């Protein structure tokens, strides 16, 4: 009950008018930026991070929670409404929403995504509320070796299992780890890989890397192969009432709940966050649906489930982030660095050291969810306008804000130079199919892993077995073996699934769909 009181206090803080304004602004800006094509949640968070730096920590975190949820949701609007061929097979969930939109049911797709996100986000936040304090209390007992085990798991799952290729993921991870090494070693005070450049003595700022990879790298990449011609946008039917029929509700509510049940647990374990969850939810819905033949042609379950799973996983990711200080996605890694820039260190002590702050943050997640749904349903028209923004201006804007964000860190032009170099690395990684997320995870977790590893080895007087003999660490490594097996299996399955889907899609052009679909 004690936690319940703390949560109420958190609400009392988060509901103060000035903080409500920040939550509102965060959701609004987060969604608006997230809706912009080519901008995923990670780039949204990275680009908007500098904006929050002028605020006090509570306000900044509350704004940030809004940005996180808003950015997550904004992306689904983009994929539903923007008609870009070619990438449908890679994002299973985008297909159904996009197909629904082409059948004139875009508003329904957006509504089921929004309501599903709201329900999943709220349930998952309840899960976070219950789980996080308990987990934090347990995590206090973890030793350095146990943390090393957890970080190794995060490295392997994010680095090796998520992308298409194990080794490309490891290259990306390695580059991130290397950038993390640059600067002054915190334990011995020695400079490493600074090449005698004084600007590198403090290392390379995580924000700089994130903005460079996600904003500059992406902008250069898109610019080099910009799709020309008219922006192919699917028109949306107007009017509240036509959004979801009774039948749509009937077909949506179970996928929402199943998606939540799949998304939240997957988000909490270091298995790479939302990607896996949305895929699993999609496959589940397809299996359970009575309308199997509609899948791939605009089945509402295929939007409702994965969207819910996506948002539930987004909340789940916050559990290890807040309780262990372990980010398991690129977005979470950027959020962690945001925390650190406000002088807050997430981890087991966070709940005991700064309860007011952390509970205000959790309360603001509930509030952010409500604002999200209140904003999104009526504002769809504005989001549609945003999608029509001429691409030259869009990417020019991304570059300008990236340069602004880099400069605003320390007001040093050298940072912009580093930004450009990292942007070029990001460009080549995209072009040659290297995943970006492992780099960010390696960069932020690498120094933590090193510190904990050396601490563990100092405690054991250099005995290497200490890293694996602690019961928790041993269990974690055993789990890792299972995860690798399951991950490889899942990946093979997913690839086959997507391939089959691509073939099916190629075979069925967009003809008006099966007879059992609802009218409209």
């Amino acid at each position, binding site marked *: 009950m004690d936690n319940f009181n703390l949560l109420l206090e958190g609400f009392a803080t988060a509901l103060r008018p000035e903080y409500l304004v920040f939550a509102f602004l965060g959701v609004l800006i987060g969604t608006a930026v997230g809706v912009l094509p080519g901008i995923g949640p990670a780039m949204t968070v990275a680009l908007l991070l500098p904006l929050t730096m002028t605020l006090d920590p509570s306000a900044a975190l509350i704004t940030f929670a809004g940005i996180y949820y808003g950015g997550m949701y904004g992306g689904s609007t983009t994929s539903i409404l923007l008609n870009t061929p070619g990438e449908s097979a890679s994002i299973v969930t985008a297909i159904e929403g996009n197909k629904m939109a082409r059948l004139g049911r875009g508003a329904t797709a957006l509504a089921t995504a929004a309501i599903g996100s709201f329900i999943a986000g709220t349930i998952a936040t309840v899960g976070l509320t219950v789980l996080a304090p308990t987990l934090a209390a347990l995590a206090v007992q973890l030793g350095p070796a146990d943390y090393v085990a957890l970080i190794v798991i995060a490295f392997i799952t994010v680095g090796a299992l998520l992308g298409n290729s194990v080794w490309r993921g490891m290259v990306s*991870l390695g580059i991130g780890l290397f950038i993390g090494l640059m600067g002054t070693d915190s334990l011995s005070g020695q*400079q490493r890989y600074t090449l005698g450049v004084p600007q590198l003595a403090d290392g390379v700022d995580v924000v700089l890397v994130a903005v460079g990879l996600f904003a500059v790298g992406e902008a250069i990449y898109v610019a080099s192969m910009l799709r020309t011609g008219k922006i192919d946008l699917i028109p949306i039917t107007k009017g509240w009432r036509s959004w979801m029929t009774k039948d749509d509700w009937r077909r949506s509510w179970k996928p929402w709940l199943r998606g939540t049940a799949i998304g939240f647990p997957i988000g909490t374990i270091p298995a790479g966050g939302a990607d896996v969850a949305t895929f699993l939810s999609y496959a589940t819905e397809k299996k359970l649906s009575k309308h199997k033949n509609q899948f791939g042609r605009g089945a509402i379950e295929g939007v409702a489930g994965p969207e819910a799973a996506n948002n539930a996983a987004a909340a789940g990711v916050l559990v290890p982030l807040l309780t262990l200080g372990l980010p398991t996605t690129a977005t979470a890694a950027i959020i962690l660095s945001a925390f650190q820039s406000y002088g807050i260190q997430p981890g087991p002590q966070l709940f005991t050291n700064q309860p007011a702050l952390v509970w205000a943050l959790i309360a603001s997640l509930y509030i952010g969810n409500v604002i999200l749904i209140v904003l999104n349903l009526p504002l769809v028209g504005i989001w549609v306008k945003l999608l029509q923004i001429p691409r030259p201006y869009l*990417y020019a804007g991304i570059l300008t804000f990236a*340069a602004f964000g880099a400069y605003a860190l320390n007001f040093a032009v050298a940072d912009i130079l580093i930004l450009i170099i990292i942007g070029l690395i990001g460009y080549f990684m995209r072009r040659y199919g290297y995943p970006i997320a492992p780099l960010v995870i390696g960069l932020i977790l690498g120094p933590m892993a090193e510190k904990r590893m050396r601490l563990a080895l100092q405690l054991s007087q250099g005995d290497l077995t200490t890293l694996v003999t602690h019961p928790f660490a041993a269990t974690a490594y055993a789990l890792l073996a299972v995860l690798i097996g399951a991950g490889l299996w899942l990946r093979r399955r997913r690839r086959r699934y997507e391939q089959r889907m691509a073939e099916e899609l190629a075979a069925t052009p967009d003809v008006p769909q099966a007879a059992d679909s609802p009218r409209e």
Partner: protein
Amino acid sequence: MSSPVSTPEAGRRQTSSLRAPIGELIFAVLTIALGVFALVGSFGIRVPESNRVGPTVFPVLVAVILMVAGVAVLIGVIRGHLGSPEESEDVDLSHRPDWLTIAKLVGLLLAHLLLIELIGWAFAAALLFGGAAWSLGAKRWWVALLVGLGLGLTVQIVFGELLGLSLPLGPALAWLGPLI
């Protein structure tokens, strides 16, 4: 372990002229080189006496990861396992990468960083925005420049003047400084 290119799309990509593997080879070799650099560099790190596990252990580990992964990718590329370029809403993968645009954007960013302190943040940003929009094919360059100027001045006033970020005003706006 590299992904076998099996989807119809990937197959198409592999055959298109865009996928000259020379760039891939260079990237993989550079990764290995970075690993070697990390390894060699680790010998240059001074190890204080007191530390049993010093500041060189982890760098060696990272170097090994880079070298092994780099070699594995290199072998994969030679065997024909090419990476698939990332997909994005606005990317048309059938286009050839346009080096001129990339060079223009990098040049504009460099010009931006050189100009910030000379002409002020707002004008340097206007140039970056206008130039980038023009490089990307904005029809009227002067509109792009004006939009950039509006954006630059807005950010300068909101963040520089009202929120207190120290963005250089430059000679043209120097009179703004003492106002706030």
